[in-house]
């Protein structure tokens, strides 16, 4: 505090931190505090709870009292026959989902951008964005209805395939319904970027006699390129954090072979079987891989994109 007093020369930059806090106490104690408290309690305290991944946790002994077993939970998971299967299920679901799903919103936005009549465009957008607001449960309920043995899809082809019980169908169902629900919504940001495309550039391209394909390459693509890069990093970096809710709602006893992903396994092991330590270890394994992937993808994209990652 003394140092602060000495440094005080009247200019704002020279205020000590304490003086600044005293003067702007509201910023810290009213504005920031609620968010900070919530973050510490609900995000950082559970991070401390990760310790149980290295213990044989017993609720009666608590985190500090339980036996320390080091990496035993991790080796148990890595050596179990299920490990490769669940890891591959998670990766395949996410990677195929990304490869099939990522280009669709871009194509939709480019096509939508060519629609000249504003009224029609608005109507199309109304339809495209709607499925995004359907809940996971309703979406999966619809899928189950449409694909049921007596449902309309089987009716259409005169077959009686029970899609929900066949492991090979799980990923296509998951990915196609994901595109159905999310592609329109994901196209919004590309549509917004396209709206900001330079009109002069488009005009010049048209006057130079560029055809639509050449215009898309010269005008539309540069307008959305940054957005495409950002979206790709975000999606690729989040590959391992593929959600629990939808996979669980599309699971049946019969399609487990491809539908059991790490997130659903963590839930079942932890909360249904009560194997807290093991489940936490599996979850931590997943998080760590995710962080590594995010860093790697960011590095690769930064290299390709003149040093600009995010």
């Amino acid at each position, binding site marked *: 505090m003394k140092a602060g007093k000495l440094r005080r020369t009247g200019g*704002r930059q020279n205020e000590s*931190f304490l003086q600044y806090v005293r003067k702007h106490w509201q*910023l*810290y104690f*009213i*504005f*920031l505090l*609620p*968010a*900070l408290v919530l*973050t510490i*309690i*609900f995000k950082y305290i*559970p*991070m*401390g*709870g990760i310790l*149980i991944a290295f213990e044989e946790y017993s*609720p009666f002994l608590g985190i500090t009292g339980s036996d320390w077993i080091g990496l035993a939970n991790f080796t148990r998971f890595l050596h179990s026959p299920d490990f490769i299967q669940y890891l591959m299920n998670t990766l395949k679901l996410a990677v195929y989902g990304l490869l099939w799903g990522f280009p669709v919103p871009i194509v*939709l936005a480019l*096509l939508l951008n*060519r629609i000249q009549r504003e009224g029609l465009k608005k109507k*199309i957008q*109304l339809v*495209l964005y709607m499925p995004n*607001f359907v*809940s*996971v*449960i*309703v979406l999966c*309920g*619809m899928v*189950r*209805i*449409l694909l049921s043995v007596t449902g*309309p899809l089987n009716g259409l082809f005169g077959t009686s395939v029970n899609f929900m019980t066949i492991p090979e169908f799980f990923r296509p169902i998951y990915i196609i319904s994901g595109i159905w629900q999310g592609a329109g919504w994901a196209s*919004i*940001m590309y*549509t*917004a*970027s396209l709206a900001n495309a330079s*009109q002069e550039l488009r*005009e010049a391209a048209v006057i130079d006699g560029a*055809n*639509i*394909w050449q215009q898309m390459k010269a005008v539309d693509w540069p307008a959305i390129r940054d957005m495409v890069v950002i979206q790709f990093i975000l999606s690729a970096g989040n590959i391992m954090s593929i959600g*629990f*809710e939808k996979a*669980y*709602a599309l699971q049946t006893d019969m399609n487990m072979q491809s539908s059991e992903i790490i997130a659903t396994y*963590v839930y079942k092991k*932890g909360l249904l079987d009560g194997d*807290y330590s093991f*489940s*936490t270890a599996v*979850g*931590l394994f997943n*998080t760590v891989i*995710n*962080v590594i992937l995010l860093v790697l993808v960011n590095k690769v994209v930064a290299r390709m994109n003149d040093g600009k990652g995010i």
Partner: protein
Amino acid sequence: MAKGKANAVSKHYKFRNMSAFDKAFTIVGNVLLALFVIAILVPMIYIVVASFMDPVTLQNKGLSFHLKDWTLTAYERVMSNKMIWVGFGNAILYSTVFTVISVFVTLLCAYPMSRADFRGQKFFNLIFVITMFFNGGLIPTYLLISNMGLIDSMWALILPGAFSVWNMIIARTYFGNLPRELREAAEVDGADDLTYFFKVLIPLSKPLIMVLVLWVFVGMWNSYFDAMIYLNSEAKQPLQLVLRAILIQSQPQPGMISDMQSTAARAQLAELLKYATIIISSIPLFVMYPFFQKYFEDGIMIGSVKG
């Protein structure tokens, strides 16, 4: 865009002025777009129509547009069931409380974080951003909630996710783009930060607040995982859990089908109830949807301006 300037462009968009290549390109593109729109609409329309069908007709003949094959049975059965309404009530309660708290806490935090002169900004930013990539995971969070005595309490659904770092970043960017002079003028008038926040900042942030309210509310309304793991009492179940029992687990509420004589009839009816359940649970959404549409692009524009 100025009308005169865009003339060359809009003329080019006119189909009859196009070259053969452009015509073909436009046709293929529009067909693709139309197919996607149809693919979205067909399942929705099917479910709406099927929900009015007599279960036996639906199973034997499929959709029918003869009014004699139509019935409101499914709707009567679903709507006369108590649990659907309990679910609606809980979902409204949880989503509203969650939205109010979450948006308020997020906006409060975004204000100091948006100020260039805020001391400690880098440090706090790091604290918040770390939680976007790294977290304790399911079990440690569950144990914490359990130790706090929040099992079977609605606060278990509300408090852990109440502060959203992502939304804070969006709000921070929005605040940061407002003119600096606003705050300087308020400071000259002797307004402290609280007064400035409530009297100047909030009234200027209507688009931001609408977008956040929409996202946060819909997110809570549509989720089921937290409710599934934290809530035990039937009376506290939000709509999505009630729907899950009917749609995913194929366990309709007991009173809905128990009067049917044969197992087959019960199964048919249980199937039909799914259609009506989907429609009833989606009505509030589709009533509000057009009203909110104008905020969608606002939201993207607000969110995409990177800070």
